[in-house]
């Protein structure tokens, strides 16, 4: 029997014990990615669909779990633990993001195998994926404070996510200079650029620019997570 004494260990143990969920979590992104990556679909469409997939994977999982915990009373129990809410949220969301990342590794490997010549984009792709997963988890955590049920959390995640994805320029490239600036202020645009590059498309940024963007959002999301602990765990 695996025993966990810390918050991050507990997340991993629970995940590992849920075998059925483990299989579904690994198979689901791969089933979406296989036709996109292996077919002759234009890379701009494949990058669009995969960006949406990665953003949704992060946000929905965290949102549903935290809403269920709020309903069952676990959030109240967390409040009585001798741990600050910021540290609690960082440990939980970073572990969840790492689990989500593992879930997406087969997809990333598939892209690398399909387009080995685009290896210059891989560091940017890894970092921007991690950043979008952490930000997605954070969005899900905030949405959980507004939701009464795990089903409702989907609504509160998708409502802000779709406009943000649009503003990131993943559906249509931004034509106006102002929209281009807005897209660069959103993490999804860097993931989209990295995916475009890795899939052999025509990105607007260079690999190192995308890498820096992804890194910046990853660091920023980690800082924001610590600050939002009280909002997530202490709101009634």
């Amino acid at each position, binding site marked *: 029997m695996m*025993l966990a004494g810390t918050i991050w260990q507990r997340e991993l143990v629970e995940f590992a014990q849920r075998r059925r969920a483990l299989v579904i979590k690994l198979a689901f992104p791969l089933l979406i990615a296989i036709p996109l990556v292996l077919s002759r679909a234009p890379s701009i469409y494949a990058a669009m669909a995969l960006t949406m997939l990665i953003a949704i994977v992060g946000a929905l999982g965290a949102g549903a779990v935290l809403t269920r915990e709020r309903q069952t009373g676990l959030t*109240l129990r967390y409040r*009585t633990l001798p741990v600050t809410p910021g540290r609690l949220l960082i440990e939980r969301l970073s572990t969840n993001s790492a689990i989500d990342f593992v879930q997406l590794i087969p997809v990333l490997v598939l892209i690398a195998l399909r387009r080995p010549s685009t290896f210059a984009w891989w560091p940017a792709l890894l970092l921007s994926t991690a950043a979008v997963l952490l930000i997605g988890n954070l969005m899900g955590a905030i949405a959980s404070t507004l939701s009464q049920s795990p089903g409702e959390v989907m609504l509160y995640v998708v409502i802000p996510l779709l406009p943000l994805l649009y503003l990131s320029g993943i559906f249509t490239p931004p034509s106006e200079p102002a929209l281009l600036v807005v897209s660069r202020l959103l993490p999804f645009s860097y993931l989209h650029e990295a995916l475009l590059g890795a899939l052999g498309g025509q990105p607007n940024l260079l690999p190192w620019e995308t890498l820096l963007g992804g890194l910046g959002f990853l660091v920023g999301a980690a800082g924001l997570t610590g600050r939002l602990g009280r909002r997530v765990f202490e709101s009634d």
Partner: protein
Amino acid sequence: MRVDTASERSLLVATDLTRAYRGGKGVFNIRLRLAAGEVVGVMGPNGSGKTTLLRLLATAATPTSGQVSWFGSTNARDPSVRRRLGVMLDQAAHFDEMTGYQNAWFFAHQFGLSDELARERLDELFSWSGLSEARDQLVGQYSLGMRRRLNLVEALVHRPSILLLDEPTLALDYRAELDLIERLQLLSLTGTAVVLATNDVHLAERLCDSILFLHQGRIIREGHVPELLTEVAGSKEVQLQLNSPVGLEAIRALAAVEAANVDGDTVHIILARGANPAQVLAVLNGTADLVSNMRVRRPNLGDLFLKLTGVALPVAHR
């Protein structure tokens, strides 16, 4: 963090503690002082604010106004404060996809226990709680009573200075309740202070040094148990089980009746010292088949609450 000398003498001091919710619910201007080894019971009907008060004292909720000082500190987020609190909230919340032992191990470590100490204490507590055989079973498969017992294990494992228990006997069988009373009495002797929210009058009378009666979020009476019981000493509680509803006005109009209340098909009547239960039956004269059962007994804390408020405490569920 603020430290004052008065707070240092008491383990816990609540001053004008208020938590207001929409619709007028909550708790208002609660004052409470808890010394080492003291056992305080909080009694009141559903919605009276017992759970809200326990959550405030357990750092699970923040007050609208007023404050709580734990061991001299008013910082509810101070990890050193929380490490000395043992909390059993009203909801038996656990990680359902993990076993009982995995759950308890996690909470034991969160409160700073080493592997060795956690193993030793959990072995003893699982045996005490009767959960040894179910320790490797997923909590999702536990009954409510088992989940509540696991809550008790988790609240006790780090040997806290203050225990805050919300309805600790809810869903426990009689044997488990006796074991709990014995354990809490021992802990009290060794200096652990206990606050328990309960409507179990037998638990309260056997265990508590003093009682707070909460009604509509406010303390309506507080005192030591023997002192409170003298207020109803000599009077009698009459329980009439009825076949059909009856108006209470005629019963309440009797000089000998101090309070009367209906709970389902049972009328609870508190008779004044020296009064004869036959007086009540005389009021129901001519409706002999109305009463299916009658019981007269010594009054308890629940009867005092009924006398004070006109509201009966709900029967404690077991």
